[in-house]
């Protein structure tokens, strides 16, 4: 029995549909719905979040009707929490917290912001999923009107979200990291900075061999500028112990995530979709690190229980895939699992948010070091190496690269990574661009995925 389920008995692990979650939700006791609140120890009615996908579909997240979800209580908690992040950010402001947008570095700056009591960091970057979740062009059209149109990374949705003032509150401060990262998003940041006039630029250095010390120094001085801005905003002086505590809390999230990755990718006890949410939780904890940590513990207990009782959610013998660059359309992950494959390794451009922070060095140094672990800060070969080591760890049989037409790094590195991986792991590679938001996966992508999985299957047969 999973002790974090508070007496509720999960059904046998399964990936279930939108409708099936509604049936299951009828069995969730009221006490459990009342139990979970964000921004603990707050217990206001508005802070409940244990709600099924139906609710969020009614409020416009149409794609939820097509996804498949893990059927555990912990997963319901995860989905409810992730889906109500917009509201949570507004509630944060209403309850006197400062809302800080951190952009572009995908992880490190959030650790710094979290050191300040009452500050809630969030990544507008993550709103790139919104057009897909809603099957909607609203944010992309808005971005286009502002200057960033088609053939650009879907992260342009963040620009639309800023202009709309209704997906998150206008931030008290914006930190925009730019440099050795993606140009599409740097362009978004540029327009956001001009639109809001409230932006502090933070350098993301190019990772060069043997230059770590100098680059850490550079980053630390960048962070000091951020610290000054936060101190001015909050009138709180940052101490080393505040920072150390934030680093420890971030590490707790990263440790739990690492454990979940091992469990999911080795033992097939959690689906790929939920795992993508888990991995991205390392960026800014969906705007509430305390509750997010509890959710990760709950998921871990669920996954451990499944492992111990030999109840995987996916067939462990399913075709094992490595995945490069997070799929903007989450339906892709549902699709590949429906087709008898599972994800066992990922390189979702967020390595900097996954690696543990060094607790033995000063806080800013630790954050700088983690920033330098970035997936995109260095060479393509380094990124390929990250993927290869993850793929080897769980014997991936094929690599899927989901890119975006016009995405600056996709255009430049995808081919090279494919070439390196093919050479090193003699593994087939499927590369495709994620089509714009649509209810279904386009026919050509589906066909290519099917053919790819067929190829992997035939390779398996040949081996035996």
């Amino acid at each position, binding site marked *: 029995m999973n002790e974090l389920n508070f007496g509720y008995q999960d059904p046998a692990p399964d990936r279930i549909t939108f409708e099936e979650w509604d049936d299951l939700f009828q069995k969730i006791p009221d006490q459990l719905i009342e139990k979970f609140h964000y921004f603990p120890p707050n217990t206001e009615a508005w802070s409940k979040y244990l709600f099924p996908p139906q609710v969020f579909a009614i409020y416009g997240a149409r794609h939820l009707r097509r996804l498949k979800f893990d059927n555990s209580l912990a997963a319901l908690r995860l989905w409810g929490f992730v889906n109500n992040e917009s509201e949570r950010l507004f509630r944060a402001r209403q309850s006197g917290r400062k809302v800080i947008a951190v952009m572009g570095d995908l992880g490190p700056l959030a650790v710094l912001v979290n050191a300040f009591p009452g500050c809630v960091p969030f990544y507008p970057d993550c709103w790139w999923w919104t057009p897909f979740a809603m099957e909607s062009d609203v944010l992309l059209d808005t971005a286009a009107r*502002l*200057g*960033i149109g088609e*053939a*650009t990374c879907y992260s342009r949705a963040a620009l639309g979200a800023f202009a709309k003032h209704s997906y998150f509150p206008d931030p008290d401060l914006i930190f*925009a990291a*730019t*440099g*050795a*990262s*993606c*140009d*599409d998003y*740097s*362009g*978004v*940041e*540029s*327009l956001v*900075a*001009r639109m809001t006039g409230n932006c502090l*630029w*933070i*350098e*993301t*250095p*190019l990772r*060069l061999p043997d230059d770590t010390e*100098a*680059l850490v*120094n*550079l980053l630390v*001085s*960048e962070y000091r*500028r951020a610290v000054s801005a936060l101190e001015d905003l909050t009138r709180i002086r940052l101490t080393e112990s505040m920072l150390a505590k934030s680093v420890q809390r971030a590490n707790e999230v990263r440790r739990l995530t690492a454990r979940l990755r091992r469990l999911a990718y080795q033992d097939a006890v959690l689906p790929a979709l939920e795992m993508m949410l888990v991995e991205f939780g390392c960026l800014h904890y969906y705007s509430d690190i305390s509750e997010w940590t509890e959710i990760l513990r709950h998921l871990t207990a669920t996954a451990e229980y499944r492992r111990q009782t030999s109840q995987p959610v996916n067939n462990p013998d399913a075709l094992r895939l490595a995945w490069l660059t997070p799929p903007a359309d989450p339906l892709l992950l549902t699709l590949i699992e429906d087709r008898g494959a599972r994800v066992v390794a990922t390189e979702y451009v967020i390595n900097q948010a996954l690696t543990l922070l060094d607790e033995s060095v000063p806080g800013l140094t630790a954050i700088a070091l983690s920033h330098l672990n970035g997936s995109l800060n260095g*060479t*393509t*070969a380094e990124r390929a190496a990250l993927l290869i080591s993850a793929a080897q760890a769980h014997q991936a049989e094929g690599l899927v690269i989901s*890119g975006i*037409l*016009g*995405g*600056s*790094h*996709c*255009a*430049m*590195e*995808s*081919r*090279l990574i494919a*070439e390196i991986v093919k050479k090193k792991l003699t593994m087939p590679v499927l590369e495709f661009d994620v089509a714009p938001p649509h209810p279904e996966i386009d026919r050509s992508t589906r066909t290519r995925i099917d053919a790819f999985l067929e190829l992997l299957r035939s390779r398996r047969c040949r081996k035996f």
Partner: protein
Amino acid sequence: MGINEPESLTVLRQHRLNELQELKSRGTRLIGYFCLYVPVEIVRAAGAVPVRLARADYPSSVAGEQLLRVDACPFCKSSLGLFNSDPLYQQLDGVIFVNTCDMMRRLPELVATRVRIPVFQLYLPRTSEPVPSRIAEFTRQLNRLTEFLSHLTGTTPDRERLLAAISTENQLRSKLRALEMLRAVPGSGLKTSRFFDLIALATLLAPEQTLTLISEIINPPTPPAVDECQPRLLLAGSIVAESDRDLLNLIEERAAIVADVICTGARLVEGEVATTAEPLTALARYYFGRIPCACRRPNDRLYQHIQQLIEQRRVQGIVYQTLLYCDPWRFEARDLRRWTGLPMLEIDHDYSRQNYEQLRTRIEAFVEMLCSLKR
């Protein structure tokens, strides 16, 4: 020499290429570089010959697609292709890249996988505010570059050599600036397309050769009459490759380009390196602080610079040309249009000449529209 005779420049270029070949055979190192953020002074001070790599064409761009996706920047694709086809690129002893835009900063790795030429990645902070730690880091990068070049040439660019190179380049920039101003003067006879040709040549020739060339041009024979009623345009946007004159020629059939913010145009010659400070520090400050490319953050100074040009040169319209998938410039188009309030013609291209006639029509319509506004 007639300044509007491209043939003469072509001849000069060919002479220089032959000369470079000879220099190389005698042990002089040829160092290619892509970007105006590369301090050529250091290259010269290290005893090497800097050669700007700013050519691009459609066949080489298609060749580049072997390793890059179709949605990569055409200039990057073409550059990659040229390493396999252009004799100049193949003669290089080293290449310096700068991590300006994302695509450009990823190019050296691709070049290194295909061509056995030593590459140097110069890290220029993307952020443009002159924060001391950023300039210090860039200075450190210039030291790295110095080591790289010394290793390659066996010559250390010491203080004296650096100061001499700075002085020469300052002089060169100053002379080229005078030419740049000249093309804004109606009736001067110097078209922007030729000015760009000169700039391109200047990044290939030895400085003294360029200076001689300029002195011939500044005292030109009677210039041809120019229609003063032609609309006065500013050219902005992505890099204009030295082998790509289609757009400029089409524009200049009907209008005068009196200003530009192109990195292979006027932006290359702005400002001077201070000669009073430590040379590397002075170089770091100058190059870090150049009028920012659109890819730097913030790039407000670029906007202000454009505004100044508009006022000083009575610009009436903007031609904003971007290479396909050139995000840094493409994304700024709307904001720039709003900022300046001027009519703006936006053009996307990829060296393919596919839409040449359509382009001509669009330019004609734009110029007509400007003329009607004038009336």
